[in-house]
């Protein structure tokens, strides 16, 4: 039996997507904490400052977009990879992208830091199956 995920971080430059994803998560998973970032740099900063000393028993779920102007999802992952293992152990990362480019999907699948590639918009079934079973 998987545990209920309680913390979500959304990284996407499109505030509309973030709004929509946040609403869907909140509606379907109930009591959860969802934090969203338009700028990926701020998300990285937040991860470092918040998770350096805290230690949550359960994993935090991070949804990451690929096409962002200042820092792409891939570049975000490169920076994230340099973080300490105790921080990285606290995250499950999913790529949440509107892209239907097979190259992107392939690249996500090959990246060991990424659990899965999810196509936008996020599906309720996926949420329920993955985080509430």
């Amino acid at each position, binding site marked *: 039996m998987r545990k209920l995920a309680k913390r979500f971080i959304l990284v996407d*430059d*499109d505030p*509309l*997507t973030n*709004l*929509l*994803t946040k*609403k*869907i998560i909140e*509606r379907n998973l109930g009591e959860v904490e969802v934090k969203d970032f*338009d*700028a990926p740099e701020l998300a990285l900063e937040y991860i470092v400052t918040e998770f350096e000393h805290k230690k949550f028993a359960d994993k935090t779920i991070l949804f990451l977009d690929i*096409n962002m*102007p*200042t820092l792409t999802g891939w*570049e975000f992952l490169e920076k994230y990879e340099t973080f300490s293992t105790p921080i990285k152990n606290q995250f499950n990362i999913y790529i949440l992208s*509107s*892209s*239907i*480019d097979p190259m*992107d999907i392939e690249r996500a699948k090959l990246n060991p830091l990424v659990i899965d590639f999810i*196509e*936008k*918009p*996020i599906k*309720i079934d996926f949420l329920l199956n993955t985080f509430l079973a």
Partner: protein
Amino acid sequence: MQKLNKNFNYWWDIYAKHVQDVVLNNKADCPEEVSYWRNAVFCNILTYLTPLSLIALIPSVIMAFTNGVIVIGIADLFAFFVILLITVSPGIKIEVRKAIFISILFCLSVTLLYFLPLPGPGLLFALAVTILSSLVYSSAAAYISSWANTIVCGFFALFIHFGNESTVSSVYSMGSWIAVSSNLVLLSFAFSKCLDLLLAGLTASLQENKISKAKLERANRLYQFISQINQTIVHIKDADTLFRKSCEIALEFGKYQMAWIGSFDTAQKKIVLLNSCGVSEQDIKVLTNLPYETNSPEEYVLRTGKYFLCNTLEHSLEINSRKRYAEKLNIGSFIILPIKKSGSVFGTFNLCATEYNYFDQDDIKLLKEVTGDISFALDLFEKAERHQEAEIELQKNFAKLEAASKEQSAILNTLPASIALLDNEGKVLKINDEWIQFGKANDLHHSYEHIGKNYIEISEKSSGRDSKDGKRMAKGLKKILSGSGEYFTMEYPCDSLTEKRWYKVEVRPYKSLHQNGAVVMHINITERKKAEAEMLLLINNTEESFILLDSNLQIVFFNNQFRNLYKKYFGLEIQKGVSILDYAQPERKEMVASIYKKVLEGNVEESEIIIADLNDTTSYFSLKYSPARDESGTIFGAFVTAVNITEKKKAEEQKEFERRDKEALINSIDDLIWSISTDFKLIAANNAFVKEMKEYTGVDIKQGDDFISLNVIPDASLRDWEELYQRALLGESFKTEIYNAHSDMGPESWIEASFSPIIVNEQVAGIACYSRNITERKTAELERAKITNDLIQRNRDLEQFTFIISHNLRAPTANIIGLTEFLQNEILTPQEQKEFLNALASSALGLDTIIKDINSILQVKLEVNEKKEIISFSKLINELLLSHSSLIDKHQVLIKSDFSEVDEIFSLKVYLHSIFYNLISNGIKYSKPDEQSLIEIKSKKENGKIILTFTDNGLGIDLTTKGDKIFGLYKRFHTHVEGKGMGLFMVKTQVEAIGGTITVASEINKGTEFTITFEN
């Protein structure tokens, strides 16, 4: 007792020595000075006074204390200790010691006067002070002391008069005091005066003594100097040693600091150093070849023959030039004295001294004498030398005469000729050694007995084989002796038993004071005869045929070949003594005569003739006519050589044929073939090459023309060609393609060229080149490459669309899907509903924008075919600034433009407008918020290309990470500014559509520069 005395003496010596050491401080004063004696007296006074003063001190101190005059006791003790201190303590100047000594005694005398009831001791001390002042100080000090005594007495008189409560006043009345004290005053002055006179006399005598001693020394020195010089002159026989010795003596006996002798080189105006002493190696270099100027001391001496004296170098203006040198060598005064030779100034004797005013009248007088002696000695040397030379010359002449006589007879005897002297009858008078030797060697026992016999008879009597020659000889002798001939000669064989020999006899008349006759000389000419025979052999066996003619063109000599030539080709037998013209073919006679005429004038002539022999075979002959010259170079005839050159001619013809064949071969093709030498001169070229050159450069290129100076290669490609040639010259054989840009020499073209070094004797002697015009093929290739490029570009565009669809079109679509799902499935509050509907609308709008963007991009690709026009950059920017003034004003941007270099371009105005607008707006958008934004736009022309640059001082982009994406669609690099990432994509698309390229250079926080290049 004796031991005690010895001990005392020992300690006294130590004491006395110590006092002397500390007081005089080992000052080495001159005993001729009075001050020396004053110091010595002072030292002795201290030495003896200190222990002796105890005699006075002990009783007076005891008395003072017992009688209650404690002040006196203390003063006595104080005075004693002070004197003891200045006697034994070191490190005090002698003048200070003296001052302390005098003042302490004076103080003591005043104290005694004041406190003792009786004036005796005080007055005694006062008098002692005066005497000691005179002895150890000076006479003036004694007078001062006398006056001091007078003043003290005066003061005490005042004490008495006013009844002051002192010991003196209580004891004396005014009258008695004056009586007592006046004695002191009198004695003080008397002693002062006496001692003054005594010491003055002493000083004067000391001074006199010193001066006379110095004079004596000087006189002695000068005497020694001159006597040494004179001694040297007597002993020495050559000038060099005299000079060296003179310099040495000047230093050793004359006590001068430096001495040197130089001679004048009037031609070079310099002084040649002959010898020196006391001058260092380095300074010698300065002295050597010292040039002398007009009005210099040396020049003065040379001109006047008088000495030059400078007693105070420092103040002499005329010798400024050598002051520095003199200072360095510490020279105070110097004298230059002339040294004469045969009455005229020959050199100088230079003497230098450290002191000023060193040379006084005595010195000068003596030095003049010395140089006079040296000059005299020089004349003497010269005379002696001349005398010696004359003697040697005489001896030589005598020896020569003797030698000549011996030589003559030796010559006669060693001559390889047998010589005999005959009298007018033909009788043999004298014979030389060879005559006798000849007789001996040939076993002619009677030959040395010829003397006294008649040689005509001997000749006539000769028998056998020699009889004919004997008769000729007798006839010749008679002719000479009778006076009807000046010279007779004949050559005759005279074989020995073992070898073949030839002799030549010469007879000449002989006339002397005593008698007339003839000289007969037999010379062995076997060697010459043999050589002649060998020469003949050589001449007759060469390939060449030759003939020698005299100035009348008569044949003098010819070799066998020449004879055979005439025989073979003309059927003529030539003979000596016949004119060569007689053998010439009639039709050639005139021409041959003119050739010989020229030759006899000194010219060398050549001609070729073709002769058919009797069998009708043609042969070529090369004839060379040279003037024949005798040993003095005078032309005495003509020398003709003939060489058969038939073979050579045939070979040349064959070669010529081959050359023409090759030429025809290379001229038959249209490609260019040529070869050049190592210094870039044309060796050969085919017609196609010459034609091409003529066509494109107007130059009619010929063999031997210089490629570089002819200017046939366009300047732009001159260096490339030189490089190619150089490569080939290094031995490389290669093929290359050369591009010629469009120029005044023709349209753009491509050629394929190959270069091969021409190797002669393993060295590169030139380059063989071949070139072919491949413009057509190249153009086709380029066309193909362009099509391929276009296809690749098209493919990239398609990829771009795939990207747009997969990323950008998908993003709003995904949002719309999510939002509509949400709106359908969830129960929402009115507030939420409104929010979601807004989001939905925004997404739909985004979708629409992207579709419109795609449309405008596609539009770009279609519009290229629109009409192009001439656009002015400055006009364009003015329009832009006008229509977007609000944007520019709002952001406070400064836009500078400079289109002075190139202002016009033939292009699509719509695109250019869009490019300018997008780049300016890009610069404004990404300006630094805290700094005045500046955008600079410039145009320039480079290699025919128009280049536009847009430079801003904005935020900049990190090109290392974003470089490849900067012109990508929907790429943005800053989040704080609105933008959809379309501008730069459009700029690139439009620039490329009108045939340009765009590049970017940027640095974060410094700014960005876009460079657009249009191929004109």
